[in-house]
């Protein structure tokens, strides 16, 4: 009773190369990001050729890393909900509200509030609270996550516009601004933060009980419940963590732009979902981790950066993104599992 799924490379690769090549291939196969690395390589090759090497210049790489950081943080939060087999569409609303709250509580030109560094826990708590409500609605009231989070997004968006009266709130001397706009050895700090979060979440997924339960629920919710997994609790925690990641992104966005307004949240959902799908997180649940989500964000950002560099029409760029999303989902969806869905 041996598993038949082993690759026989003999006859294709010279023997002196077969051994290291095989190890590398096995590692890539097990890592679940081989396709994504290939994708990134393809993007790099095509645009480097198309821009006479400008795409791979250090300056451009810095731009890409800087632009990819916030989508990556959002995607790292969002993908865990997807791994559970759900979806989180509340990103834009949560970010809008958090941004506006940052604007009103941090040192700003609108009022005399100044909570200083306390703005970090406040935005985390606010985002987390929104996620908690998503989780409770999803598990306790048994409303599909698609509807819960879509509704939540519009409610919070409305609230954000109401609280900010639809205006832009300029920030003054934010204590975080040095950190967020700075860099270490040329690597943008935001990218380092994203990398740290990626490492933490990936470790939790690989090496803790929580991670095990996350994937068990994504694989089969009913069987996991029977085995003793606390399904509802895990789901609520995942939604809450996702909300906290959105809150953090909102804070970074506000500080980066040095102003706060509700529309800062706009156009964040689509890139995040694309990143998750392109990264290889199956929308059917149970497959893909934080590294996939972050890599997906990097690929999408690099692609868009490249399209700008080679001067593609902006409308055509949006169409390209749409095509990329659909192809990514078509490639990553677990069709075996769909067979069971009526």
């Amino acid at each position, binding site marked *: *009773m041996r*598993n038949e*799924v082993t690759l026989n490379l003999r006859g294709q690769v010279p023997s002196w190369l077969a051994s290291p090549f095989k190890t590398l291939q096995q590692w890539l196969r097990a890592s679940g990001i081989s396709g994504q690395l290939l994708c990134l390589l393809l993007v790099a090759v095509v645009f480097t050729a198309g821009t006479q090497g400008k795409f791979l210049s250090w300056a451009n790489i810095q731009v890409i890393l800087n632009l990819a950081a916030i989508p990556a943080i959002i995607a790292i939060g969002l993908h865990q909900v997807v791994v559970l087999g759900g979806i989180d569409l509340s990103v834009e609303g949560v970010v809008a509200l958090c941004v506006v709250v940052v604007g009103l509580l941090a040192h700003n030109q609108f009022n005399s509030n100044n909570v200083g560094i306390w703005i970090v826990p406040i935005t985390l708590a606010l985002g987390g609270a929104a996620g908690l409500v998503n989780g409770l609605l999803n598990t306790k009231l048994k409303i599909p996550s698609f509807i819960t989070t879509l509704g939540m997004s519009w409610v919070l968006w409305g609230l954000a516009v109401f609280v900010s009266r639809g205006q832009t709130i300029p920030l003054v001397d934010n204590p975080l601004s040095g950190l967020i706009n700075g860099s270490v050895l040329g690597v943008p700090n935001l990218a380092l933060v994203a990398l740290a979060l990626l490492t933490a979440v990936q470790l939790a997924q690989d090496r803790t009980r929580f991670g*095990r339960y996350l994937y068990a629920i994504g694989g*089969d919710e009913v*069987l996991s419940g029977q*085995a*003793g997994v606390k399904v509802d609790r895990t789901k609520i925690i995942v939604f809450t963590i996702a909300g906290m990641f959105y809150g953090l992104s909102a804070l970074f966005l506000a500080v980066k732009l040095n102003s706060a307004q509700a529309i800062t949240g706009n156009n964040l959902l689509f890139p995040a979902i694309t990143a998750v799908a392109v990264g290889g997180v199956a929308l059917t649940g*149970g497959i893909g981790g934080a590294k996939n989500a972050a890599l997906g964000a990097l690929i999408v950002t690099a692609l868009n950066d490249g399209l700008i560099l080679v001067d593609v029409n902006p409308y055509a760029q949006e169409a390209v993104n749409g095509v990329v999303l659909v192809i990514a989902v078509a490639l990553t969806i677990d069709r075996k599992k769909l067979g069971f869905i009526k």
Partner: protein
Amino acid sequence: MQETKNGSSTKELVLELRRITKSYPGVIALDGVNLAIYGNEIVGLVGENGAGKSTLMKILIGNVQPDQGSYQINGQAVRLRDPAHAIRLGVGMVFQEGSLIPNLSIMENLFLCHETEFERFGVLPKKAMREAARTALATVKVVEDLDTPVADTSPAVRQMVEIARLLWLSRLYHQKNPVLILDEPTTVLTEQERETLFSILHEITKQASIILISHRLQEIVENSDRIVVLKDGKNVTDFSSENASIPEIEHLMVGHTFSADRYRENEQIEPGKEAVIKVENLSKKQKFEPISFTVGAGEILSLVGLVGSGKEALCRCITGLEKPDSGSVTVGGKRVTAGFPSEAVRSGVGHVPVDRRNDGLALGMTVADNLNLLVLDQLKTAQLMSPIREKRNALDWIKECRIKTPSPSTLCANLSGGNQQKVVIAKWLTSQVRFLVLDHPTRGVDVGAKEEIYRLIRKLASDGVGMIVMCDTLEEDIGLCSRMLIMKDGRLVREIGCPPFRKPSPSEIIGSIV
């Protein structure tokens, strides 16, 4: 205390059920059943479908609570809350459909929900877990890579992982003599894997007892120490398998012969010469091998075989729900385009599915809407649906088929199971159906409604409709059909004529099935 096959040692009683009774609305599933399991033995549990095996198993693992009776484990009375509780007391089950999470690896599945055993400062140590996993899997001789997702392994490996998990858990909870229940473990295995399974099971009896449920009597007789036979929710007997013979067990399983003409044999007609459906060399890879047969006008053909014999897939191919790999189906001289239910219906092939609530009826629609579904074109006046004609047609068929409904505009969801089934059959009666597949037409239907359904089936036959039936019991199959085809492992193994009042007995047939 009792002597076993090996004869050498006397064994301890580990688990005992006494006078267990369980009834569901309308049925007594178990009626005063006793079961005793001793240490280090394999007990074979046999019985027909519906004999109460599955209910008994559910009670053993705490999925179902008995209405009456006592349950003792190691001499202590227990009341199980759920399967997790049963596992803590050393009773676990390997289900036919499996309970492993497909995307998790073998190791992750082994320890799922018991990771705390390994946890160090909130982190799971890979090395220690790997070692424990290897030890656990060594008992069942699995040499698979621990990180392989379970979905990529063979059914045999999955089964072994489940067994290893149960053994590991029983050790975790300090159970000295766990009881493992295996439900039809061999149906998904190859011949060789089957042998491996039994050699491992014999090995495991050093540390556990096993309850083996199987339709394959041969392997029960060969591998168990004791055989328990259930029939109609009652114990028939319990005997050592040393002096058991298969025909004897078959007789005990099937039991009595029936007398009254429940199946309206006097209405059974001589099938017409002309074939309504001609199946030629139809095959589907891994489901059934090329098969050819015809069904005459008014003929009732019974298709008999175990789950996995290929009969379900065959019917799905005929009704267009599945696309066959080769062969053709011809109805009334015209070849039916394969793989499209709509094409099958258009050429006059009807289907009464086993799951009528989901597949057979639009439950949220009224009785009239369901009845008229296939004949909407005939109920038009000037190209528009005529409510008057719709109602008239519905009322005609409600009367004809004796459907008990307050009005034609009652929702089908509000009818009883038997009356729902009558609506499904009546729907096909209204259309010019030539051939009908009846998949367990009387499942979940009470006795009175059963008679009505038999009457409708006879009526369909006298109207010249050819039918394939697959029934809940062998008796029903024999009673209804005029010819019987027996399938086993995807092949047609036997054809038996069943002329009225000269029908074969179930015990003559069961040998070809199992």
